[in-house]
Structures are given as structure tokens and as C-alpha cells.
């Protein structure tokens, strides 16, 4: 069994690490500290932790003011609130002036601990992809979360970091080097290309194993940065096999699937299928039945790949 890590726990640990290294790093929390694990920063550096209460619009404005005087604020709340509740604030005082605010979408996607559609977030990537000046990152595992956070602090500008709640296997090795805007080939293959973002790339890797058992060789590309998008890597991955399946714990409208379809439509048209939420909200349930009902399992990814392969052979 591979080592497992929760992205939120790594987030909390890395926040402490960054704040210890860099006196400019502070955190604003929308009263979710024990969920998002910003409580770790509160314990380590209480003077760098700012409880902003249950008032997200003000919180993002405060972060903009802090960034304007030279601090590096991490704003932490659930993805549903970051991308919707405080969206105009992010647009006006963070994205438009390009201020150095790092905003977290915790508990993203539909695996949110049985809280249901109000607290799930299936449109956040669409929202932030469409917003000029915002870098969007969705890591595959805890190792990538930590590296992405270090990269975010080095980068001067607004960054959205999309995180998940529950423990998942560690995929990336110790030598992995995350770079903003760079996609990563996790597996070479010649029959079908699977492109994932966030933890859903893990289900692409599982799908590649399922396909291998049937003698199908899958290429797996992980796209942790939704913007700026690694167009070259996506085109090369599509060219390697001529067929593409995208997969994300997010709506297929405007997220990774939409982004890849846009790129390939202009640069290298190939048949493709998109795995993700199909223009629907989610509901309350534990993870396994949610993944099954909304078609996000590795089996669903593998089935989409087989459908494309069958179409090509007829």
C-alpha cells in the first residue's frame, strides 16, 4: 500500500513551513481552520493568522490590502465560497490589479465529506480559467501540494490553489519538481491518451492499469496548472496516440475537459471524451457512491478510452 496523505494536512504543514521561512506570509481564515487545517499555522504563529469570521467578501478584500503593502496572504476557505461567494472581490481588488494574493479552494470537487451540493465545487476551475491574471493549480497529491505552495510564494501574482479533503496515495517521487504552467507525463503509451488534473489524475493512472490488463497502452498526462495551460505538452500527448480522454472532479464545461478541447480544436483536432460532472450539481454521500454515480471512477475513464478505440477501429 502506497503512503497516503491528505492535501489539506500537507497544506497546513506547508503553510507553517512557509511562514517560518518568510515573514511576509500570513493566512486569513473564514472560520474553517480545523477543516482546512490553517489551525496549524494558528498554533505555530498566532500573530500571522487572521480570523476573518464567516464573512468571505471582506476577507478577500482584506487580503488585497495586505498584499498591496507587501505581505503574501494565503486566503483559506472552501472552494465553493472562494469561487462564488467572494468572486467579485477577487475580480476587482485581486485579479484586476494582479495583487500577490494566494487563494485556496479547499474541499473542491464533490468529495467534500458528505456536505452535499451546497459545499461541493464543480465550477471553480471554469470560473478562474476565465479570469485574466489568475494562475490556477490543482495538485495530484500531497507532494505536489507542498511544491506548488513553494512555487506560489516565489511567483508574484494571484494564484488559485484547488485542494481536496481526504487522504489519497502519494504519486510524485522525492525528485519531482513542480513548475507553474508545466504538465507532467506520468506514463508513456501509444494507444490512448488520458489527461487528468488534481487528484482525478490518480484515477487516470488506475484506468491505465485497467487498460493495460486488456493489452491497451495508455499515455497519462497530468495537468496541475489549468492556467497558464501547457499547450505544447497537451498537443504532444494527443499526437502520441491520436485519441484523448480528459478526467476531472469538476464540471466538463470549462474545466480541464473544456480547456483541452479548446487547445486541440485549434492546434491538433483528435477524437476525445471528457470525464467529469456533466452539467449537474452533486449531492450528499460518501466518496465511493459519489464517484460511481457521477461517473468519475477509473472504470469510467477506462470505458471512455475503450469507446474511442472502438470508434477508431470501425
Amino acid at each position, binding site marked *: 500500500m502506497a503512503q497516503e496523505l491528505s492535501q489539506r494536512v500537507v497544506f497546513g504543514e506547508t503553510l507553517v513551513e512557509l511562514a517560518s521561512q518568510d515573514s511576509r506570509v500570513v493566512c486569513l481564515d473564514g472560520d474553517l481552520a480545523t477543516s482546512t487545517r490553517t489551525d496549524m499555522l494558528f498554533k505555530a504563529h498566532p500573530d500571522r493568522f487572521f480570523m476573518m469570521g464567516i464573512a468571505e*467578501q471582506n476577507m478577500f478584500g482584506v487580503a488585497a490590502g495586505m498584499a498591496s503593502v507587501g505581505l503574501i496572504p494565503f486566503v483559506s476557505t472552501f472552494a465553493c465560497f472562494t469561487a462564488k461567494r467572494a468572486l467579485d472581490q477577487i475580480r*476587482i481588488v485581486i485579479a484586476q490589479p494582479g495583487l500577490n494574493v494566494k487563494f485556496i479552494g479547499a474541499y473542491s470537487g464533490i468529495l467534500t465529506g458528505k456536505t452535499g451540493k451546497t459545499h461541493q465545487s464543480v465550477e471553480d476551475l471554469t470560473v478562474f480559467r476565465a479570469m485574466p491574471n489568475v494562475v490556477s493549480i490543482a495538485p495530484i497529491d500531497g507532494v505536489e501540494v507542498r511544491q506548488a505552495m513553494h512555487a506560489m510564494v516565489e511567483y508574484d501574482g494571484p494564484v488559485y490553489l484547488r485542494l481536496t479533503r481526504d487522504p489519497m496515495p502519494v504519486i510524485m517521487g522525492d525528485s519531482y519538481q513542480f513548475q507553474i504552467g508545466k504538465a507532467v507525463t506520468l506514463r508513456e503509451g501509444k494507444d490512448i491518451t488520458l489527461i487528468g488534473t488534481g487528484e482525478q489524475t490518480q484515477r487516470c493512472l488506475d484506468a491505465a492499469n485497467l487498460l493495460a490488463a486488456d493489452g491497451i497502452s495508455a499515455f497519462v498526462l497530468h495537468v496541475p496548472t489549468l492556467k497558464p495551460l501547457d499547450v505544447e505538452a497537451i498537443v504532444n500527448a494527443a499526437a502520441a496516440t491520436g485519441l484523448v480522454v480528459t478526467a476531472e472532479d469538476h464540471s466538463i464545461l470549462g474545466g480541464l475537459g473544456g480547456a483541452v478541447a479548446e487547445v486541440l480544436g485549434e492546434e491538433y483536432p483528435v477524437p476525445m471524451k471528457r470525464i467529469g460532472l456533466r452539467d449537474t450539481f452533486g449531492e450528499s454521500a460518501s466518496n465511493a457512491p459519489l464517484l460511481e454515480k457521477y461517473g468519475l471512477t477509473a472504470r469510467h475513464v477506462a470505458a471512455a478510452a475503450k469507446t474511442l478505440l472502438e470508434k477508431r477501429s470501425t
Partner: protein
Amino acid sequence: MNDPSIPGIPQLIEIARSVRIDIVQAIHHAKGGHFGGPLSAVELLVALYFRELNIDPVHPQWEDRDRFILSKGHSAIALYAVLAERGYFPVEELMTFDAIDSRMQGHPDMKQTPGVDMSSGSLGQGLSAGIGMALGARVLGKSFRTYVMIGDGESQEGQIWEAAFIASRYQLDNLVAILDYNKVQQFGWQYPEPLLPIDHPEEKFAAFGWHVIEIDGHDFNAILNAFDQAKMVKGKPTIIIAHTVKGKGVSFAEGKYQWHAKVPNDEELTLALAELVRREG
């Protein structure tokens, strides 16, 4: 007041007159922009930039400067005119207001205009950014102060009250809000009888834990005294509720919601300038 470089009240009055003329001319030239709100804020802005703020127009990004945020961003032309008169950029540049490629955007843009400390325009957001600056000063161990001008109309936004709560909770005595209480919004409540954009703001902010000062927002003595008083307040933020007149200085626009964003035609420009110049006596 023996330092000749510090303008006294008579000079401030003359600067305010110039600023009003700049505003009216720029709006007429641009054939766009807001009219009433910029004119109600003139004395407050002139007092800030010519007397109160610790700033350096030659070094707009000086990191220890006092900060100012125009939360009621649609009054941008008033801020631009004051910045120009203060020497941040040539007064002639005001005539590029609202034009393509201009540094004078329709709403304040901190990346475009020298001297603008925070972008604004979508209402209700400036006070929160001011809290961030004031908290930032505390974290960085700096003594600069932060001033935010809010409008009475935008005080209908919930975010103003989120911010009012947090500013007082963090005891931000390095933060001063200024309410340009001109009592007229774009249209507002007209029937069955006219209602104020917000009533009893002094009670509301006091209830949120703020130190409240109420003044005539066109009286330089009162404005400067209020700024001095705010510096003496410890452990809470201060709001200066400045009673003002929308469209102040142009008689046919004063107090009229119809002049919220109306552009004067040639005849109205002539009338307005005649009034503004005549009052020079």
C-alpha cells in the same frame, strides 16, 4: 502654520475651486463620468492630499506613505484632479479621462494612475482593503495610517458591515473611514417619499464599535480637526461622517439625483464654470 509650504485654509479653498473646475471640464471633455459624487468629495480629498496624508508625489510607491482608498470609485475624477493638483502628474492629463490608453480610467486603477493606492469601482469593497493595509502596517511594524472614503449609497452593501465588524474587532486605530454623506444616490427611494441612502450612519457605526465624528464635509477647519481627533483615538477605528452636498459648487446640480452621472452640455459647462469662478471673490 508658519511653514509656507503647508497650505492654509484660504489656499485649500482655492485648490478646491481649481479641483472643481478640473472635474467639470474633464467630464465635459470626456462626455462621460460621474458628476455629483466627485463634487461632494472635493474638500475632503483636498484636505487629505494637501494637509493630512504623509505622502511624496515624486515617489508614489514610497512604502511608508499613508494610504488612501476611494471606495466610492465612480468619483475617480475627483481623486485624479486632486492628485494632478498635488503634482502626481500634469493637470492636462485629466483631459484624457475615460479615453483609450489613458491612465485616467473610469474607476481607480492602482496599476495605471500614480498615487492610486487601491483599485476600486465595484461598490462596498474599499473598507476591507483598508483593513488589510492597516493590519499590514501592524504586521510590518510600520506607522503609516490608512484612510478610506466610502459613499452613503455603497453603505447598502453587506461587505461594508462585514468590514465595520472586523475593523473594530481588530481595534484598528490606524484606520480612518470617511463617509461622504451626500444623501443622494443614483436613483434610490423616491416613493411614497424620498428616503436617505442610509439613515443614522452615526448610530450604526457606533454600534459596530467605531469612534464617530460628525462634521460639515465642506468646512476645512472641521475636516482638519476631525483628522487630528482621529489620531488621538486608541483601540478603535474612527469614522468621520462628513455631511456634504451632492454636486456641491454647481447650483443646478446640487442635491439632485439626476446629476449623479449626467454630463454637462456646452451651455451647462459655461454656467458651471461661471459659478465656480465667480465664487472666487
